[in-house]
């Protein structure tokens, strides 16, 4: 178990390192870094000065070293657009809203998808199964920006139940949560259903019934515990994807999270901020995947008790 954890941890660290490196060189090799880092309207002299200030006059490899050193101390440079504000500062303001939206969406989708998946499997081929499947098929095909806009049109513009964007009060969380959550729950529900189907027809479920166990206990204690294994792994992986997928939802609802910061930085060509946001979101993604592996190993006694 310990070797397994260490191996996966090393893998995650390497992934993050590769992400940072690739990003660093991509930003500098896909275009003139000077032009990118320094707004075009400044004069030649000022540009030279800024170049020195940003360290852009040094060889690339030295710049890379400085960049890595900065990352270690949490210094990711300053924003080109918001003068005088550090990337770290901008990012830290956005982490909480992003986390909030991700967690809410995840909870919402689990709350919907798990019971739906379980009962769809239990009543396979009957009414509730079809409802669940339609729910998941639609959720998997509807682009989240469309769902978001339709929600806005109906509930914010027409009915005026919810604000049209931003993050003020509990009401503003509802629509983004639903939009992101539906998308996520489609996959979870599908997996729960197929996983439950497998375990519901397993011999250990038969044995539980033979023992005289109540049907609800058969389903949730015996069948679900084993069916949950791939689902929990998937949910953790999906949580990572939520952090990425939230970008579109945040943008639609003007949610002040990392995603909308990233899009704004992209539009404003604010490269230090792009770098910072990608490193942060990407690392969160990799770490979630690492945790998914751990969760899988921990729940599955077969892995937990070897090594």
């Amino acid at each position, binding site marked *: 178990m310990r070797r397994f954890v260490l191996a996966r941890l090393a893998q995650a660290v390497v992934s993050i390192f590769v992400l940072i490196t690739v990003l660093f060189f991509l930003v500098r090799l*896909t275009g003139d870094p000077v032009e990118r880092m320094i707004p075009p309207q400044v004069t030649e002299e000022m540009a030279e000065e800024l170049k020195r200030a940003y360290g852009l006059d040094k060889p690339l490899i030295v710049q890379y070293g400085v960049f890595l050193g900065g990352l270690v101390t949490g210094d990711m440079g300053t924003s080109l657009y918001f003068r005088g504000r550090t990337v770290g500062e901008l990012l830290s303001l956005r982490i909480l809203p992003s986390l909030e939206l991700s967690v809410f969406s995840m909870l919402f989708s689990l709350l919907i998808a798990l019971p739906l998946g379980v009962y769809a499997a239990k009543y396979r081929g009957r009414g509730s199964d079809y409802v669940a499947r339609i729910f998941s098929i639609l959720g998997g095909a509807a*682009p989240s*920006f*469309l769902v978001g*806009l339709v929600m806005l*049109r109906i509930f914010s513009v027409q009915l005026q139940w919810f604000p049209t964007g931003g993050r003020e009060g509990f009401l503003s969380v509802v629509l983004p949560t639903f939009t992101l959550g539906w998308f996520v729950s489609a996959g979870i529900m599908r997996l729960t259903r197929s996983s439950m189907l497998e375990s519901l027809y397993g011999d250990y479920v038969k044995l539980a019934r033979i023992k005289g166990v109540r049907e609800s206990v058969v389903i949730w204690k015996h069948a679900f515990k084993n069916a949950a294994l791939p689902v929990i792994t998937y949910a953790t992986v999906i949580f990572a994807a939520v952090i990425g997928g939230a970008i579109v939802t945040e*943008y639609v609802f003007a949610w002040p999270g990392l995603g909308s910061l*990233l899009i704004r930085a992209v539009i404003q060509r604010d490269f230090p901020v792009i770098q910072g946001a990608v490193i942060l979101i*990407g690392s969160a993604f990799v770490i979630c995947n690492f945790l998914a592996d751990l969760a899988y190993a921990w729940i599955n006694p077969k892995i937990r008790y070897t090594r």
Partner: protein
Amino acid sequence: MTTSESAPPGAPRAEAPRVKVRGAATTIRFPFVSMLVLGLVVLVAVFAPLIAPHDPEVGQLSNKLIPPVWQEGGNSDFLLGTDTLGRDIFTRILYGARVSLMVAILATGLAGVLGTIVGLIAGFYRGWVEIVLMRITDMTLALPLMLMAIVLVALLGASLTNVLLVIVILLWPYYARQIRGEALAISEEDFIDLARVAGLSSPRILWTHILPNVMPTIGVLATLQVALIILLEASLSFLGVGIPPPTPAWGLMVADGRDLLGRAWWVSFIPGIAIFGVVLAANLLGDWVRDRFDPKLRQL
């Protein structure tokens, strides 16, 4: 089930034919409606210049924001209404189908070819080649798709070619991972040894013996990815890091109507529905193909 006649006496007899009444095998019916929808989209894309009543990229401002024909104020000249620049949405939907399909087909094809080559080589040659190729594959798979797509297109510059390029870069590892596993299994079978003994060169074995055996998997993966690619391209275009205006990409059209939700819902929703319909049809077709040809991939 015919073994009992040919089996030697005393051998355990084959399991009696059982009628399957339970288990996880749900067979999906052939998705006629999906095929119909996709067929229609292909036709529309091919013949867009013939069907389209207006210019897709130029409109007259005097015609701006005309509602669809069934709404009050609608105009039969503009079946699905017009956008802020007075361009006919019906025409733009038709041309938009071209963009979506082109990206979907080219990206699927290129990612499939690249991923298959990498997968075959890794699975067949083994050794350090495999290690290096699979490390790259795993690294790419370890990155968040949407985030990387946004950043790469932003860095390279928003254009049709770059969108294509980025999608291919991000999606080939899915093929490579799957194909490598199968190539590995196949290269351990007896007929590959026979081919080697017969003096066939390695590339020849790869081409004539292994490739045909992984073709079904490639086909299934490709069908499954079409919907994903359409969705990805639409999202990128919607965010403004995809296909640049004035090209009529569906995602871009949705973005056009973002601020008009109250006044002119059709500007966003009609292209949105087009994306939704095509993705839904492609998904259903993909599910069917996967179930029909490769149940191993069920978890994908």
